[in-house]
């Protein structure tokens, strides 16, 4: 029986080979090769058509690579190839060139005469077509056609399996990537969310370079917020004008891949070598915050529609993970603000009031017992100092720091320079500092405090430092006292203060650096305050 039906045996072997593969591109190549062997043709090809009926892929066997390169482009689906697509029926020809539908071959194309075209259908829809030409020993027979049709049926099953397998694997990779992203984002509130996304996209889509591009508004400049991969450092942080590109279209909500012809304008500044770029919108908590872009280097395969779907799905899910991570950070920040406000309230409502009341009581006691007055007075002084410290602390705890607020700026200078001093300086505000210090005077006050504390840190070797900012309607002064080495030991201490004097004189004030009788130095900076012009 095998003797009588060699065709069936070949078909059985071919079907086995075809259905043994799982990777789709391998499956397609295997089908074309099996068909070629099955009917002893010289050239074979498998054309995959997209939903619009256009040739999406063209896999050919039997033609040497040099010849393919010489022809330059793959068939576009006109002529007889198009007829198979259009009719979805097998076409068998003795001479391809004599068919009225023939459009001729391009230059360098080898001669072809006998032709057999068979559609591959999966669940009633045409997936693609098998094309065979130049059968050795005469035209294709009816039996050839039947055999290839049978092979096409087996091929359909194999393609379907490979597709399902591909989808399952893709879903698995996607969920693994998203799982990693979510756990990285939620593990630490300080995680650079965009960096995590970019890293994950690079491994998920096989991109060499991934970036997150943001913009203030549609049409505004594009800013590369984050980049990961090859050449990332050359584009991260750069800004480029808004031009119509795959990136800007993604910012407007439209995912896409750069056209395959390579004529699309390069969206990135500098020459990031790229063969293919795809970009999708990144939406977080309903806001389109930017575009997620993946780039493959020249020499790598181009991105496919499947890659774009994968990236789109990733961006949607990852956007949710980022939103969750951000809301967690917001909640923690809010809790901290509330907690600090509660502490500030408690300090104000209870601690200061009790200290004040106790201090008043002590003072009354002092006037009733003059013998103990002196020692009681020392305690009262301490209580007042504590109240002043708490008042500064209450202010510092109110974290809604407006940047124009000069007291917050002065506090920041102190906390910034504290690590360079032995102890945290004591900071006291006297008078309505925010209301008095404005504009250039406020900027100078911040600079003066910074320079004074830097001087102390550099030269004084002080144990304790105290700062008093005194703002009255006519004059403002900044006094920094330390218990360090004093003036005599260091000449450079004086030379470092020229700038401070200049700043004071510019406002019509002055600066004095003196030795304290108790040791250490006292730096006193003051300037008159001009009456405010009525707005």
């Amino acid at each position, binding site marked *: 029986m095998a003797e009588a039906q060699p065709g069936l045996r070949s078909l059985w072997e071919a079907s086995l080979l075809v259905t043994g593969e799982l990777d789709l591109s391998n499956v397609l190549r295997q089908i074309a090769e099996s068909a070629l062997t099955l009917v002893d043709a010289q050239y074979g090809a498998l054309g995959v058509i997209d939903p619009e009926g256009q040739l999406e892929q063209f896999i050919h066997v039997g033609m040497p690579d040099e010849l393919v390169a010489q022809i330059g482009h793959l068939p576009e689906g006109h002529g007889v190839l198009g007829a198979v697509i259009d009719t979805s029926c097998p076409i068998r020809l003795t001479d391809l060139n004599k068919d009225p539908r023939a459009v001729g071959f391009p230059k360098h194309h080898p001669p072809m005469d006998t032709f057999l075209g068979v559609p591959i259908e999966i669940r009633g829809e045409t997936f693609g077509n098998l094309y065979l030409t130049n059968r050795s020993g005469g035209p294709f027979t009816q039996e050839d056609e039947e055999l290839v049709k049978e092979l096409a049926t087996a091929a359909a099953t194999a393609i379907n399996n490979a597709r399902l397998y591909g989808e399952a694997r893709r879903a698995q990779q996607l969920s693994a990537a998203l799982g990693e992203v979510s756990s990285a984002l939620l593990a630490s509130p300080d995680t650079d969310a965009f960096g995590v996304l970019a890293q994950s996209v690079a491994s998920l889509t096989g991109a060499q370079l991934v970036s997150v591009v943001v913009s203030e508004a549609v049409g505004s400049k594009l800013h590369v917020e984050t980049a990961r991969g090859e050449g990332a450092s050359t584009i991260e942080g750069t800004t480029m004008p808004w031009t119509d590109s795959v990136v800007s279209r993604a910012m407007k909500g439209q995912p896409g891949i750069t056209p395959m012809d390579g004529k699309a304008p390069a969206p990135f500044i500098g020459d990031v070598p790229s063969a293919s770029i795809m970009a999708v919108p990144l939406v977080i908590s309903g806001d389109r915050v930017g575009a997620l872009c993946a780039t493959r280097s020249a020499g790598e395969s181009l991105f496919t529609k499947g890659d774009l779907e994968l990236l789109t799905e990733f961006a949607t899910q990852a956007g949710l993970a980022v939103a969750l991570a951000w809301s967690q950070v917001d909640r923690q920040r809010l809790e901290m603000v509330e907690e600090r406000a509660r502490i500030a309230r408690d300090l104000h409502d209870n601690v200061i009031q009790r200290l004040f009341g*106790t201090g008043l*009581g002590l003072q009354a006691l002092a006037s009733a017992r003059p013998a103990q007055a002196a020692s009681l007075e020392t305690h009262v002084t301490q209580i007042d100092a504590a109240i002043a410290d708490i008042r500064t602390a209450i202010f510092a705890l109110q974290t809604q720091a407006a940047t124009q607020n000069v007291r917050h700026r002065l506090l920041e200078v102190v906390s910034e320079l504290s690590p360079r001093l032995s102890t945290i300086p004591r900071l006291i505000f006297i008078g309505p500092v*925010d*209301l008095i210090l404005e504009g250039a005077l406020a900027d100078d006050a911040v600079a003066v405090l910074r320079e004074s504390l830097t001087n102390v840190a550099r030269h004084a070797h002080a144990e304790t430092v105290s700062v008093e900012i005194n703002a009255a*309607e006519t004059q403002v002064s900044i006094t920094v006292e330390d218990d360090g080495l004093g003036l005599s030991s260091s000449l450079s201490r004086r030379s470092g203060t020229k700038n401070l004097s200049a700043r004071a004189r510019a406002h019509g004030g002055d600066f004095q650096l003196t030795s304290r009788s108790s040791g250490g130095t006292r730096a006193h900076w003051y300037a008159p305050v001009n*009456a405010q012009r*009525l707005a």
Partner: protein
Amino acid sequence: MTRVFLVDDHEIVRRGITQLINAEPGLEVVGESATARGALARITATLPDVAVLDVHLPDGNGIELCRQIRSAHPEIPCLILTAYDDDAASIAAVVAGASGYVLKNVQGRHLVESILQVSQGKTLVTRELSNRVRSSLTKQTQAASQEHSSRDPQVKLTLRETQVLALITEGLTNRQIGQRLNLKEKTVKNYVSGLLAKLGMTCRTQVAVYGARLST
């Protein structure tokens, strides 16, 4: 004899200040209240020479109480006593229409001297300070209305509220503002409440004008 009425929610503070004032020749405490409620009626009953009040009261807004006292009894000067800082106290004193403020510091004769000066009709809040408070508050409400424009369009001051704020910083009482703008005193009171609520929404003044609401 200068007669002082005291409004503060902390008993230990009232006791200490009463001791301090009564120890001073020529000064005496004629009444005290721990809450805003009832304070106005008792001030009307005792007619002191000076009212000393903490703006931060548990049952309401000390600033509004101060404005009511000034409107009902323009001859009674008010002195704000506060545990907050100079900036917050300055704003509170100007908005409340008080003659001055004293921080809760133990040492020095600042409180006693301020009471004496204020009782003689002196104003410790200068024109210059009022101007600074007004421009600061205006700037803050503008900044806040820009910052919150999408979420909270209500922060922006209306024309009436801007007018009322200007007259407040000129030191006018609610009754005088009503005469100036041709409004009933009660209407002015409503504008002032709305204004205070809006100022309270801007973070920097929150403590000064609406600090009481923080704890509720």
